[in-house]
């Protein structure tokens, strides 16, 4: 797992899992958690309080980092377009403003094999959204590992091998025959960085 602090922004934790076995179960657990009432719901929501990113649609470490940074900026400004900073990361990755589409394209799906978990901040938000305590970095990592049945590996290497280039070209409306991967990466990263001033 990688943890990093950005100037004036909360700490960010990222972990890459390969050979993920329980994508379908994780996805249904996420959906179910949203609908549970009371304290039990708060506990369950805190247990899955991460961004679940399907690594197939990520082209580089910088691509993911750029989306996280723009989501953190929106969060600190109070200008989130989605409900949480974690869903905002998926929203920031998608070139359009359609939230459902963003979650479908970049979020976990039943066939996900390479999965990236992102956690913003070290605060346990168990009770009514109020801070119930602070987690250290290792505790965040332990929670990630207890959720995902898969092997945690190095982030940069993981991303490099998981990318589905044809899908990326489709999502970012790049020509199918388009040339160099470095060119595609540059267009993709820049699109994510400038989304807030796109239109």
């Amino acid at each position, binding site marked *: 797992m990688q943890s990093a602090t950005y100037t004036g922004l909360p700490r960010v934790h990222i972990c890459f899992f390969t050979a993920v076995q329980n994508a379908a179960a994780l996805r249904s657990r996420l959906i179910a958690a949203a609908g549970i009432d009371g304290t039990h719901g708060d506990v369950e929501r805190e247990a899955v309080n991460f961004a679940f990113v399907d690594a197939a649609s990520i082209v580089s*470490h910088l691509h993911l980092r750029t989306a996280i940074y723009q989501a953190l900026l929106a969060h600190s400004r109070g200008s989130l377009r989605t409900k949480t900073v974690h869903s905002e990361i998926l929203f920031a990755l998608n070139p359009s403003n359609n939230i459902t589409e963003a979650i479908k394209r970049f979020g976990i799906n039943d066939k996900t094999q390479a999965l990236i978990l992102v956690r913003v901040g070290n605060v346990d938000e168990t009770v009514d959204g109020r801070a119930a305590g602070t987690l250290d970095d290792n505790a965040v990592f332990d929670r990630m590992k207890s959720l995902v049945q898969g092997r945690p590996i190095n982030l940069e290497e993981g991303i490099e091998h998981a990318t589905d280039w044809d899908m990326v070209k489709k999502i970012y409306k790049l020509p199918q025959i388009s040339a160099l991967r470095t060119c595609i990466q540059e267009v993709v990263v*820049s699109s994510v960085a400038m989304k807030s001033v796109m239109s």
Partner: protein
Amino acid sequence: MSNSTLKLIESSKLIKQGAEAKIYVTTLHPNEPPILLKHRFSKKYRHAALDSSLTRARVAGEARAILRCLRSEVRVPGIRMVDAEEGVLGLELIDGKAVRQILPGGGDDDDGEFGVTHDEIMTLIGTEIAKMHLANVIHGDLTTSNMMLRRRPPNCHPPAEIVLIDFGLTSTSGLPEDKAVDLYVLERAFSSTHPDSEPLFQSVLNAYAAGSGKAWEAISRRLDEVRLRGRKRSMVG
């Protein structure tokens, strides 16, 4: 945690200051190269409401022009972060040297460190501008200071490439008139910065002509007109 972007700027190194913006170098992400920040600071001589909307529009305009260029595979710095509220644009840091410094009269002595001749540099410039104009991007401030020469990975031919920078005055247009004015501005910049550069600029135009295909005929005709009358159109009659 009130304003992270201003805190980021405070921790960055100022490398250049202009009338419109300040330029900083900083590191944004772990394990990633440093980036350049262009901060269009607030102008106290403007009304606050007008100032923020102008700043926002200019940051957005610059970012859009760059993305348009990237999509057409014109070599420009990539975008790394945008905070339009603060007027901050984060860009890829280009590790190279301004063409102005390489050509005679521009300051530095040329030591041939990039492994390309002056004439080859001119050809690269013409080709890059032609690509940009084909995407209907009008740079608006083409000078030899706004072009960087960057080394390419080993075993590439040619061993260096031109990267166009500073899209602060950029507009989009498909008119031969606007493209001709763009070239004319560069021609004047060449003749005022680099003595005896007419043959060099001719190489730029030759490469531009080769790169722009059928569009060249109309632009060339316009360029002759623009040379006679100057950059601004006559408003008489």
